């Protein structure tokens, strides 16, 4: 299962849809994509992880890196995730306190923090 990445604008937000497996082999592609988006001026990013099938610490690290990057431009990076198995790893690592995590894309887009 490869990693798939697709992004689009939704108002002033940029939604990055991630699908498949994010591990040490595929995470560099996600990192590049985030770097590229921020480089192009996308500072309000919503990462939609609804279709992620596997995520480990390498993927978490890349998301934290993306958050730092947008913050240095006063931007935001929030997550859409409704899968218990993925939420669990954010909880275990304490990253639920670091990322705004939403149940659905609609909720993420309505959030104005």
């Amino acid at each position: 299962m490869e990693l798939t990445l697709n992004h689009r604008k939704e108002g002033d937000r940029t939604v990055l849809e991630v699908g498949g497996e994010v591990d040490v082999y595929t995470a560099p592609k996600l990192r590049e994509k985030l770097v590229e988006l921020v480089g192009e001026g996308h500072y309000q990013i919503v990462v939609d992880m609804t279709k992620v099938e596997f995520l480990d610490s390498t993927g978490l690290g890349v998301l934290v890196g993306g958050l730092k990057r947008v913050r240095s431009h006063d931007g935001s990076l929030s997550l859409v995730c409704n899968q218990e198995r993925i939420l669990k790893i954010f909880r275990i690592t304490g990253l639920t306190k670091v990322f705004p995590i939403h149940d659905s894309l609609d909720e993420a887009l309505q959030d104005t923090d």
Partner: protein
Amino acid sequence: MRDVELHVPPDVQYVGLVRLVVTAGARQAGMTNERIEDLKIAVSEATTNAIQAHRREQADGPITLQFGSASTDQFHVTILGAGYIPTGVDGSESTAAGERNLGLTLIRGLADVVDFQGPTTKASVHMRFTVGLTPPAANVDSL
């Protein structure tokens, strides 16, 4: 189930194969899908660490995954590779969550029992997972 052993080159492209194999083994041992998800993450972390240790030390030998179940409700899995477990990340202390040690934090949070062996020329991470049950809730809540 007697022990199965997989050797892969120390290259990140093989982490997916390691997950696939341990998943098939755990399923055969009767592990629940929920618990298999935990197992996959923990094994992925330990394998990634072993591969990275090999790269740092330019060690060329394979990474080894061993697994089996001694009893019907215990599944054990060991990841063996070159490398060492540096002091402070030997599993004895609970690291403050953040951006560091995410991998080891997940291993400790997901496996029922973890035993890190090192520093020697070979490092191993030995884990145990209950086949039928979810882990003690404490593992999650205490973090």
